[in-house]
């Protein structure tokens, strides 16, 4: 069966979200930095909502240990995550404008690589890298909206995962304390809750709802 046209897909989203909100989603550009348990789920939520442009960035390849929580398929093992997720997003939202970069973000390339997107999701797994990205964006690109994730490991209650507004354009999602190195590691459901918080924060900001 052939897929719906661009207009048919857009109309279906308009019927769900209303034309005013859909126009905002469609004109938004979001960068997702890190395509693991957080980033792959964030990108899918944003693509399904009809965000117009997504920039997905990760230097890593799909590993069998990722399949417990990340949105990849066994036949994609070994592929760059940026390419594998590009393929999946293209099936979900074929008219989304997706840019996929297989690159490791650092203080030198962040200002250039993230220059086009107004909204940035931090979705790394390493705490040092999370802090690096957040500090680099806040110091160099104060005009961007930044949503970060910290604290979603283990299988304790999901009710402690929250979105906190730190400053005017900086939000942090998570419980703030559950470290991947303590005990159980990462479980799909709790990582998904945090990813959903990040995606929801971005969509709310795009909609003009800037409170957490």
């Amino acid at each position: 069966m052939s897929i719906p046209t661009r207009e048919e897909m857009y109309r279906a989203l308009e019927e769900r979200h209303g034309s005013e909100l859909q126009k905002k989603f469609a004109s938004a550009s979001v960068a997702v930095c890190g395509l693991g348990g957080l980033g792959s789920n964030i990108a899918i939520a944003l693509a399904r909502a009809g965000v117009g442009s997504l920039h997905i960035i990760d230097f890593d390849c799909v590993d069998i240990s990722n399949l417990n929580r990340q949105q990849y398929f066994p036949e994609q093992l070994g592929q760059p995550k940026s390419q594998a997720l590009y393929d999946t997003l293209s099936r979900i939202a074929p008219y989304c404008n997706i840019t996929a970069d297989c690159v490791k973000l650092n203080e030198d390339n962040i200002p250039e690589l993230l220059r086009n997107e107004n909204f940035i999701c931090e979705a790394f797994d390493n705490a040092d890298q999370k802090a690096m990205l957040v500090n680099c964006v806040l110091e160099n690109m104060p005009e961007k909206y930044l949503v970060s994730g910290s604290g979603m490991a283990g299988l304790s209650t999901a009710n402690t995962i929250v979105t906190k507004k730190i400053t005017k354009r900086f939000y942090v999602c998570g419980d703030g304390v559950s470290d991947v190195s303590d005990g159980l590691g990462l479980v799909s459901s709790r990582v998904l809750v945090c990813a959903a918080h990040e995606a929801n924060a971005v969509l709310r900001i795009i909609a003009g709802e800037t409170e957490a």
Partner: protein
Amino acid sequence: MVKINGEMLDKDGMTVTAVLADMGTGAQRVAVELNENIVPKAAYDSTVLKDGDVVEVVRFVGGG
């Protein structure tokens, strides 16, 4: 008094570096906002808190 992560604390005159040490956290895995502005890492040693300052220290833990 200085408001740090919502709590009023007697930290006037202390540097950001000293406050982080008191909290038991290093400078590596944090982002520090002072009165709604990011404090660059390079300025942690030289930034002295004064009465009425509002500080947010975001600590990052691993996992994603």
